[in-house]
């Protein structure tokens, strides 16, 4: 019996939920048992941050990949993946604030302002927050034409996340360079959309151009 598209989507979503949620639970469990090395706070911050970046990249893979493999449910899981990226980003920020800074609000604000790598990290998190709260269908309908340009901000945000990662390292550039390379390759599939994001032309001019092309 062949599965309906609807069922395939449910299966894919379930699989993604397992693959993306369970590692977080597992790592936190290990940390609480003091089985995450000598510095579990640092390990958790690094794990959640790097996971957020990896999930963001996973999200960027979907649109270029979908037409090539013709697996319809794939396009249906973009929001799920995006929200998981935000989920890990929240765990990352909360771990930093709760376990590292130990709930010191003035220290947090001071660090955000004084340390460039944290400033750009907060910028990235805020963008993910905005994208997350505007991800629901009813919000999308309300925003209409403005929704897509807003969500295209992700193309700027992922490189910023890589920069945040690079600036946080004591030394070494190879790992962030690899992530940057992957990100740039994935962004190259959206060259036109990104050019539009940076050009200051009004939306209607762009729509005109598009209709002329077609």
């Amino acid at each position: 019996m062949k599965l309906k598209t609807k069922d395939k989507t449910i299966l894919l979503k379930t699989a993604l939920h397992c693959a993306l949620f369970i590692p977080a639970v597992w790592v936190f469990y290990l940390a609480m048992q003091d089985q995450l090395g000598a510095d579990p706070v640092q390990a958790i911050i690094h794990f959640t941050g790097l996971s957020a970046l990896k999930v963001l990249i996973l999200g960027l893979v979907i649109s270029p990949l979908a037409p090539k493999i013709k697996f319809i449910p794939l396009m249906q899981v973009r929001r799920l993946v995006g929200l998981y990226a935000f989920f890990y980003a929240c765990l990352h920020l909360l771990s930093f604030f709760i376990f590292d800074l130990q709930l010191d609000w003035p220290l947090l604000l001071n660090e955000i302002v004084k340390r460039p790598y944290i400033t750009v990290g907060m910028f990235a998190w805020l963008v993910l927050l905005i994208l997350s709260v505007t991800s629901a269908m009813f919000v999308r309908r309300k925003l209409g034409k403005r929704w897509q340009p807003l969500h295209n901000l992700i193309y700027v945000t992922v490189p910023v996340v890589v920069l945040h990662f690079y600036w946080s390292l004591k030394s070494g550039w190879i790992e962030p360079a690899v992530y940057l390379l992957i990100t740039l390759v994935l962004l190259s599939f959206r060259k036109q959309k990104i050019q539009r994001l940076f050009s200051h032309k009004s939306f209607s001019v762009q729509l005109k151009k598009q209709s002329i092309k077609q």
Partner: protein
Amino acid sequence: MLIKKKGKNHLTEAQVTDESIYHQRRDLIKKMGFVGAGGLLASSNLASANPFSFFTKEEKPSFETKTLDFKSAILDEQKRTPEAKVISHNNFYEFGTKKSDPVENAQHFQVKPWQLKVHGEVNKPFTLNYDDLYKHLALEERIYRLRCVEAWSMVIPWLGFSLAKLIQQADPTSDAKYVAFETLHDKEQMPGQRSRFGGIHYPYVEGLRIDEAMNPLSFLAVGLYGKTLPPQNGAPIRLVVPWKYGFKSIKSIVSIKLVKHQPPTSWNQLAPKEYGFYANVNPDVAHPRWSQASERRITSGGLFDRNRIATLPFNGYGEDVAHLYKEMNLKKNF
């Protein structure tokens, strides 16, 4: 600060147990079924910081440490960083850049034969071989805080002897203004030294001003927690300068050279705006990218341990070393 004072219990060379007897005792203990503590700890969960390593656990040989005879310092057991953490969380890029790399990659490290040259602007240069390291000067225990520039710290019971005593034996000349240290350079044993993509220029080098080196706190450690150093902690001999950031405490030393001019130091070469020559622990001088005002003290707690503490000037050793920098601008000379 806990330096054992020389009293009637002070051990002399003659009282240090002969090595052959050590091995016999160890053999006996082994035959009774107790695995060497080094072996147990190296394969503990703490040593593997990869939380998903279910399918990759292999039996790796462990470096054999031996117990040493020394007079212990009086200490508060609870405040020390557990030994398992001390030996599994290390920055020793010669064996890889992850904190868990040194314990995983250094177990095959050969410390015999070893040569530690004490030379340069001295009247009586000499070389210590492996056995000399433990016999040349009586061993004492010192419990020091080690503060990493990354803003974490540990409390470690080191075993060794005063750097000043060793230098005095070489009889430095009046031209000896600085002390330069060098780590072993052996790409076969230390895979991290083969890296061709930038990073530290090996061999790792460090330096102290002569008065810093002659300060009573400056320590050459040959052991920790009652045993010889595991390779990931800088076997067989390393420096401990507790009032400076940890990267000054150079590991696996092969050369101590008295020199006229300020010697190059590895992290300063790599990022001069971030790592200075002096590298005194100073909460008022931030690293360009992060604050040094506080640190996470690694103890026996886990994730919920409230272990963020204020960083003290000179890592709390100001009473013994602040006078060395009386006239200096510590913001400029960081």
